[in-house]
């Protein structure tokens, strides 16, 4: 995915390769852990570790500034999906307080060739995304929670990812920022 020097267009990385690699990862985790819950947790943890690094790539590439409103954040997350997954989810279902929203998308490159077998209906296949979002937001001093409320793998019409703002991590804000 690196750009400098190679002049490789990151969009041209084949998404099927990505889909299959992710599939291999999840399948391996299912083998390693007996319990589906453990796999969910592990996926989130991996996502978190990716998120705290990926945020720098996002910031360096887009040059975006700090969000002072959760609506800004929603739009930036949407851009993030576009950059890294090549899909543009729609932002919907804002809560009245403006601290919760949903990202809805139909095409999901992670699940392109996937059907869940019966014994892992509790598997949150895309849980890595949740970790990524949480890790990335934490690095810009924002604590969020997110979860899937609808999942095409579980026969819903769309994928709906709910994102909730919890708090600003005031202690972690670097000097010269607030």
């Amino acid at each position, binding site marked *: 995915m*690196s750009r*400098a020097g190679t002049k490789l267009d990151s969009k041209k990385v084949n998404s099927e390769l990505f889909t299959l690699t992710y599939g291999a990862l999840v399948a391996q985790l299912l083998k390693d852990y007996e319990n589906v819950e453990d796999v969910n947790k592990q996926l989130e943890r991996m996502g978190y570790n990716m998120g705290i690094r990926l945020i720098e*790539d996002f*910031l360096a590439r887009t040059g975006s500034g700090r969000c002072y409103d959760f609506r800004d954040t929603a739009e930036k997350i949407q851009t993030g999906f576009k950059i890294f997954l090549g899909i543009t989810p729609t932002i919907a279902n804002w809560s009245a307080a403006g601290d919760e929203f949903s990202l809805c998308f139909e095409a999901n490159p992670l699940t392109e060739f996937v059907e869940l077998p019966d014994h892992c209906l509790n598997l949150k296949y895309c849980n890595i995304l949740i970790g990524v979002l949480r890790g990335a937001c934490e*690095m*810009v001093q924002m604590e969020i929670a997110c979860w899937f409320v609808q999942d095409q793998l579980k026969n819903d019409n769309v994928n709906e990812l709910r994102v909730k703002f919890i708090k600003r991590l005031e202690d972690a804000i*670097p*000097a010269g*920022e607030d």
Partner: protein
Amino acid sequence: MVIYGVYIVSKSGGLIFNHDHNVPRIESERTFNYPLDIKLSYENKKIVVCFGQKDGINVGHVLTAVNGSLVTGRDLENGKDVFELLEQPESFPLSLKFSRARMTTNEKIFLASMFYPLFAIASQLSPEPRCSGIEILEADTFRLHCYQTLTGIKFIVVAEPTQNGIEILLKKIYELYADYALKNPFYSLEMPIRCELFETNLQTLLENVEKSGAGSV
């Protein structure tokens, strides 16, 4: 167009990367007779010229060798004390080699962590709310440019005062960091960056900027 060096300071204020790019090495060797016509003193474990400036040997330069034998601290390679040697008339004439003091890694770490509170103070001193902290620090011989990312990492470039386009360069270095340090699975966050790819790409970038300006990158 000279860029002297690049520093990266982590969120917690530690120096995680340093690259000396273009520091001209100034060395001068001369033969001296007794008595020595420059004054030397011992400071910070180095023998430095404290008074008497001539023939390219300036105040602040460090004694690096005596008759070709390297000086460490105040001792020669054979363990003899330099000051004792300089007081004995029979040891002259002596050839002394001086060079500009180079910062040790420890000193760099020390300075980097000193910049951290300075930056914070600057942002607190500001008469206007929400000040960014030090972005440019200017002196007669260099200009220090600092870019702090939203995640709190500081990228610092020390360059000639006339060098322009450093803002673009800083953003490019940030991109290189995101690419070659963070995507390296063996690099752990907040730790010193020891990634060869990062270093070589940075080197290329700096050379390009020096050669043809920041517009070309």
